[in-house]
Each structure stands twice: as C-alpha cells, then as structure tokens.
C-alpha cells in the first residue's frame, strides 16, 4: 500500500496549513517525502526567543506505520543552529524514544512530533551536548533509525 503515506500526509498537510501551535511553523512541504519545520522556544534562557531551529522530516512509504526520520538541520541563510541539548548531537541527530521503532506509535504525526521536540527543548535546563558527542559525530555513518540509543535519562 504505497498510497498509505501520501494519503495520510496530504491530510496532515491540510491541517498544518490551517493552524499550528505557537512557535511551530511549516517551512516547506514540496513533496510527500521531505518536509521542513521551524521551531522557536519560548521562555527558556538557553534558547533565545528570536532564534529558530529547523527540523527535517523524511517519510518512508510505510509512514505512519514506520516512524519518520527527524533531525535538526543547520544552515547559514537563514541562520539555523543545532540547538544545544543533552539529547541532541551536533550533527542534528535527536535521541528521542518516540522516533525509534520501539517508542513510535502510528498515532503520532508531524505536529505531535514537533510539539514533543519543542517541549523537550523548552523544558531543558542543561546547556550541554550528549556525552560522547564528538566521538559519535565523527564515527556515525548510520541512519538515525538504525542507531540503538539508550534512553537512559527520561527526565530531560
């Protein structure tokens, strides 16, 4: 059923183009394979309110049965940085259980993922990178979904 992801994404798109929660904006959805969203984080001194962070969603044909691949993208124009967070690596890979096959539920969607990541950043109190960041960024060649993260710290 290749039509599954397109049908669902089309419906999601209609909804997203209507209303989105504050701080979450659709940047591009030119096809049904890759979308980009911008996040801004209110009320957290770690993330200046003027700064925006760009998320890239990649959907496989079996979305939403399969989780999308979601990473932060860095760019210079407009300027987008990778937000500092103990679960976000400098290459943009996010260690979040709901993006993993084990934690993913097909009930999630682009909006709910964006909200989850936004609140993950909003609630963060540590301006630091994950342990072993440099090593991971240097050596990792895997797709985010193939990495076995250890969700050792549910509090952050």
């Amino acid at each position, binding site marked *: 059923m290749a039509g599954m992801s397109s049908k669902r994404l089309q419906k999601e798109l209609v909804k997203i183009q209507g209303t989105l929660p504050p701080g979450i904006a659709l940047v591009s959805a030119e096809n049904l394979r890759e979308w980009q969203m911008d996040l801004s984080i209110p009320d957290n001194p770690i993330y200046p309110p003027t700064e925006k962070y760009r998320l890239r969603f990649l959907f496989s044909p079996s979305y939403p049965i399969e989780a999308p691949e979601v990473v932060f993208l860095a760019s210079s124009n407009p300027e987008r940085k990778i937000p500092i967070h103990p679960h976000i690596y400098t290459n943009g890979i996010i260690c979040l259980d709901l993006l993993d096959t084990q934690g993913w539920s097909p*009930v999630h969607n682009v909006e709910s993922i964006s909200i989850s990541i936004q609140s993950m950043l909003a609630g963060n109190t540590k301006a630091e990178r994950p342990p072993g960041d440099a090593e991971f960024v240097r050596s990792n060649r895997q797709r985010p979904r193939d990495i076995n993260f250890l969700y050792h710290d549910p509090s952050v």
Partner: protein
Amino acid sequence: MRQSLFAGRWRIRLPSSLDGAALRVTKTPPVTRKRKLDTASLSATSQPPPEPKRKASKTTHKDSIAQVEAALPATPQTLTSDKGMDSDDDFASVASSMELGEELSSSVDFGAEDSDVELEDYQDDDSAFETHAKQKPKRKAFEVEYKVYSPQDIQDQQDKQVAEVAALLEQPTEQTAILLRFGRWNKERLIEQYMDNQEEVLDKAGLGQNMSSNPPRIEAIDGFMCDICCEDTPGLQSYAMNCGHRFCVDCYRQYLAQKVREEGEAARIKCPGDGCNKIIDVKSLDLLVTSDLTDRYHELLMRTYVDDKESLKWCPAPNCVYAVECGVKKRELAKIVPTVQCECKHSFCFGCTQADHQPCPCSLVKRWMKKCEDDSETANWISANTKECPKCHSTIEKNGGCNHMTCRKCRNEFCWMCMGMWSEHGTSWYNCNRFEEKSGSEARTEQAKSRQSLERYLHYYNRFANHEQSAKLDKDIFHKTEKKMTLLQSSSGMSWIEVQFLEAASQALQQCRQTLKWTYAFAYYLARNSQTEMFEDNQKDLEMAVENLSEMFEKSTDQLAGLKVDMLDKTSYCMRRRVILLDDTAKKLKEDVWEFNVELA
C-alpha cells in the same frame, strides 16, 4: 561363525549412535575378522563383549602395552610397522578395527548392559580418575548430554507448558502464553509472581483484565475516524483490543505486517496506540492478518521461545530447523566444552554456537579468534621485515639508507646490523663489524626475547591455519572419494558396503583435523608444565595418525583396494587418538588441572 554374528550385532546397534565415523569402522573386513579369531581364544564367552579385549583397546600406558602384546600376538597383517612406529602404534594395529569400533561406539552407546564393563575399564586404565568414572560411567569426559528437537517437538513443548500453567492460573491459554513469554518461560517464577500480585503481573505483561468476558471483534462504528490514516468513511471496518485503541482494519494489518515481516517481532508487539503497552495476542492477530503472515508470526513465536530459554539453542547450520537442548550453563563454560551434534549432522558448541572447537574452551576460542583477526598477517610481516628499537621497542622497518638508525619515537641512535648503540661506532663506521660490542649483544638478547613471543604465536597460528586449510583440502578429497568409491566398486568387484571404509576415513580426517586445529589454539594459552607436555604428546600422536591417514588418500584408485585394512586400522587409530586427547583434556579442564597463561573468563 559366532564372531561374525557378533559383528552383526554391533552393526545393528550402531546406526543409532551419533558418531558417523565410528559407525562405519565397525564393518569388519575379512582379515580383521580373522585376526579377531586369533584373539577370541582369550575370552571364555564372546557375549557380552569380552572384557580383556576391551581393556586392551583402551589402555594407553606403556607398562600395560607389554601385557597386551603378550596377550595378543601380533599378526602378519599388522601393516603399520613400515612407518617405524613405536610400540604404541603397533599396539593399536594389533587391536583390530573391530574392537576399536566397539570402543568408539561405547562412547556414544548408552546401552545399560555394558555399563559395568566400562566402569571396570576406567578403573584399570586410569586410577587417577576413578571416582569421576564411577559417577559417570556411560559418558566420556568430553561429551555432554543433550537432545535434539524438531520444530514440532518445540511446539508441543510450548503447548504442554502453556496448558499446565493455564490450568494452574485459571487463565485462558492465549493469555497464559503471553504471560509465559513475558516471564521468559520461567514457570516457577511466573507462578510465584502471579500469586503474589495478579494484577501487577497481568498489567506488566500487557494483559488488561476481563479479557475473556468481552472478546474483541472487527466492527464498523458510526462516526469513527482512524487515527493512523485519518480515514472516516462511514462503515469503515475497525478493530480494538480491550484497551480501547481503535484503528481501521487496513492500518492494523499494515502495522502488524510491518512488525512481523520487517522487524521480526512477534511475542511483544504492542497496541499501535501511543504509550499503550497492551500486547497483541495470537487471537487478535489471527483475526486481522492473512495466513502467510500468521505462519511467519508463529515461526517467530517459536523463535522467541527458543531464544528465551537458556537450555535451548537453534542449530546454527544454514536452513537447519532443529533446536538442541543442553543443560550446560554459561558459568560452566570454563570447565567444559559442550559439543553437540544436530540431527542435520552439524557439530557445534552449545556454549557459543561456533563450529565444534573441542578441546578449546569458549573463552579461549573467542580470544584466539580475535587475536588471529588482529594479528596473524601483520605479525607475519612484522616478524619478517622489522626490528625493534633496543630502547623503546617500537617496531621499525628499515626502508633503505645506512645502518645508522634514529628511532623516531625515542630518538635513540643505534646500528641496524648489531643493534648496539651508535655512539660506540664512532663516526666513520658505516659498515658495522662490531659484533662483540656489549651494548649490541644485550640489545640483541632483548630483541630476541620480545621476538620470541611473536614467534611463539606464529608457531601456533601457522599450525592452526594449516589444519584449517588441510581440512578444506580433505573435504575436496572427500568429494573425490565418492567418485573413487564408485570406481573402486567397478574395478575391484567390491560391494557398496565394502567401499564404505573410504568415507569413514574421510570423515575421521575431517573430525580429527577440526580437533587438531583447536588443540593449537588451546596450547597457545597453556603454561609450560608437565601437563602441557603430556598434552603435546597426545597432540603429536593424533597429528601423526592424521597425517598418515591423509597421505593414503592420495594413492591411486587401484592401490586403494589393497590398502583397505591398513586404512581401516589407521582410521580407527585416528579416532581413538582423538578420543584419548579429548577425554584427557576435558577431564583436566573439569578438574582445574590446566594452567593457562591468561585468565579463563
């Protein structure tokens, strides 16, 4: 006549035994039978197997060889003497292949009738291990008890356990199966936990309560919208388990297909709802998916059953469907090498599922494989092309230029030729002739020491690799053997059964080489002491026997017929040497006699 009847008796019993090579050895050639008649006078009665002979075929000590030789006059058919064998070998060829067949079969034969004979043998042979032998008279020290199960057996086993526990917990079988999977098939612990706190266990296992009262079914509900595909067409068929998370049937199917086919999940597939831990049971699955997926699902369920049980392992051979049960625990692996043989004939270690690596314990195998992976080729090259800095022991390759070396690491200046300090050479010596210099000779001793460990490793590695290689070549020969067997049948007028000795020999070779290979990995980690020397003697004996047999395979077909007796003898001798080596090694491993130069993790 009695003798051949006797031979027949053994042949009938053997096919049930596990040892293919031993099986064929017992086919008594005419000459051997005759030789056996010579010795038959020793035994008053020939059934059960006469004890003195059996004793003879088992004894290894030199002092008892004299007895044996006195008792069993060497017959003219003893063919091995041309190789200049010592009395040990002569003795072996005296002990005819017939007896060796018996001897070998007894190691896998659990027939009760022989047990006391066997016990006496042990006592006579080796008083040091008397107590041990008394405890386990039927099995050799290197053998373990195990059972091979077919997929059907495993299914039955599961069903039986589920039924048992279901009756006890008063739960429907579907739920019980989920509970057991949740408890990793540890019945006792599950029952205990369940009795302590029923609700908690049910909850954790993903089973809500009152499952049986209101069985879920596929239905169309007014105003329903599927949260997965966002479809809300009226009359959309949907399904929800008792957790109430309702999705359309198509999405449910997709979800299950993804889990079962792509992710290989079965026993722990959860409800697609966000954060819902409810496990999808077999009934829901059968209701939702097509039959091809159900098959895969049940296969995966079986897989998790075997994976969950410590005492069960799948046979690692490609496409093999059998599983093996063995009681050897992980913590015992330093004391025992549990080799099992599957129904498909593949021999593997139950501890690590690598191919049979007796006598080497799993931890050493792992260490050795890693070392070989890292080291062997590099080490060979280093040994051939480099020297070490006499001061910091960095490895240095001389890639041209003069003998005046400056170590890049410690800036030590030395002479490549004599390894002595360069300062002692003065300034004009670019051609070293200062061999007697003290610093030089000291440096060379140092160098020799550190090189020695490398050389030592290479010694063992090369032999290990050689047997691995030879086993492959022998395997090629085995395929040619089949051809030879047919040729031999037509050229010599021998019957099919009479040419089986070739196959037996070929299998013996394979097996012995496999063992030999690992003796070198084992020996590499052994500390130098008298036990090790004994081990090496055994190793040497087996190696000689194997090489002798291997050599015979290269003879032409027309010569082979004449070599039959010799080959049979050598085959059984090989197998016997192997049993001796493995038995001895396994006993000492169990009793902590070996001293290793590394930790047995």
